[in-house]
């Protein structure tokens, strides 16, 4: 059976996904390194090696994400917005609204029942309220990125932050720490500020059921809970991993493009 691969080189994470027969054969999540071409190869090998596959086994490869133009073995590259919509809708057919919380940007997307984007908005001018921002805050508080979500959930009184600027929030957090404010309250305040920022982005598209969050931050339980509180909608998270939405979407696109080239209508 033909194999199709999607490679999503993000600003912080590099994701790969291989599908066969419409099913996920393998996926991989790693860090984006400074050399895009090297990152692309290591992402592909991370995805393909465990299942004994090589580049020559791939029928069609689609690259997406910031680093998509520097994936040497890709047949084509497609914007991350279309790929995220395709991937999320492929896993969760009832999804209409997608919030992608990535390493350095945030996107709100409306998608129809065919997986086609109907509205999108992206904020990548500033890293405030993104994954990178949470990493900076986590290091200030001496926690790992995995710990901050659960810690934020233990807060009893959130500290109100007026800024999601990474530079200002970092110094404000440091000042609060020196005053003895509990880490949980600082984190709850920051999560709240980020959720408000994302909610404002979502207001520019239609907030419709079902709603899903993709990207690295979707694994942060504190953030998912905050988004639910802001929107009054329970986010449905995709399986097996919400971070691979873009890579999976790229793989699904690869299959559609190949079928179209064979003269068959996409199924």
């Amino acid at each position, binding site marked *: 059976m033909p194999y199709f691969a999607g490679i999503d080189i993000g600003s912080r994470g590099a994701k790969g996904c291989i599908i066969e027969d419409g099913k996920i054969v393998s996926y991989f999540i790693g860090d984006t390194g400074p050399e895009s071409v090297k990152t692309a190869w290591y992402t592909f090998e991370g995805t393909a090696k465990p299942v004994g596959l090589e580049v020559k086994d791939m029928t069609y490869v689609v690259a997406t994400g910031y680093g998509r133009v520097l994936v040497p073995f890709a047949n084509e590259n497609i*914007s991350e917005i*279309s*790929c995220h919509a395709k991937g999320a809708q492929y896993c969760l057919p009832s999804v209409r609204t997608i919030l992608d919380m990535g390493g350095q940007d945030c996107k709100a997307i409306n998608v129809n029942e065919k997986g086609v984007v109907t509205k*999108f*908005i992206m*904020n990548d001018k500033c890293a405030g309220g993104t994954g990178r921002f949470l990493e900076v805050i986590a290091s200030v508080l001496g926690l790992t990125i995995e710990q901050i979500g659960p810690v934020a959930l233990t807060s009893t009184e959130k500290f109100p932050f007026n800024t999601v600027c990474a530079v200002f929030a970092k110094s404000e957090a440091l000042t609060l720490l020196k005053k003895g404010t509990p880490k949980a309250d600082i984190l709850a305040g920051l999560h709240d500020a980020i959720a408000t920022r994302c909610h*404002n982005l979502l207001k*520019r598209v239609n907030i419709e059921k079902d709603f899903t969050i993709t990207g690295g931050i979707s694994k942060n339980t504190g953030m998912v809970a905050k988004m639910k509180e802001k929107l009054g909608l329970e986010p449905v998270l995709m399986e097996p991993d919400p971070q691979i939405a873009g890579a999976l979407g790229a793989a699904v696109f690869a299959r559609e493009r190949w079928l179209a080239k064979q003269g068959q209508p996409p199924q």
Partner: protein
Amino acid sequence: MLANYGYVDGTGDYFIVIDTDKCDACEECLRVCPERVFEVAPDAYGKRVARVRDEVVTKVSYVCPGPRGCYASIDTNCQRVCQPGAIAHTWGVAAAVVEEE
């Protein structure tokens, strides 16, 4: 697809909104824009449509003064020359247009 290109910063919302269902890729906006904000390229579904160039997206409010302040005359700015009415700005004159919808 309603494509929003731009950002929100401390001074306001700066998005150029392109309705790709209406856009017919006539390239009139490319011709009239004094700051070369637009390009026409195939989208992910293969349709040729106008989009805001990647280099412009993160500095759109510095490059484009909005339709009211545009160096092109009011009759020859991108919004006016677009026959299908596919282009809108969220700042300047177009704010009213966005709200009407």
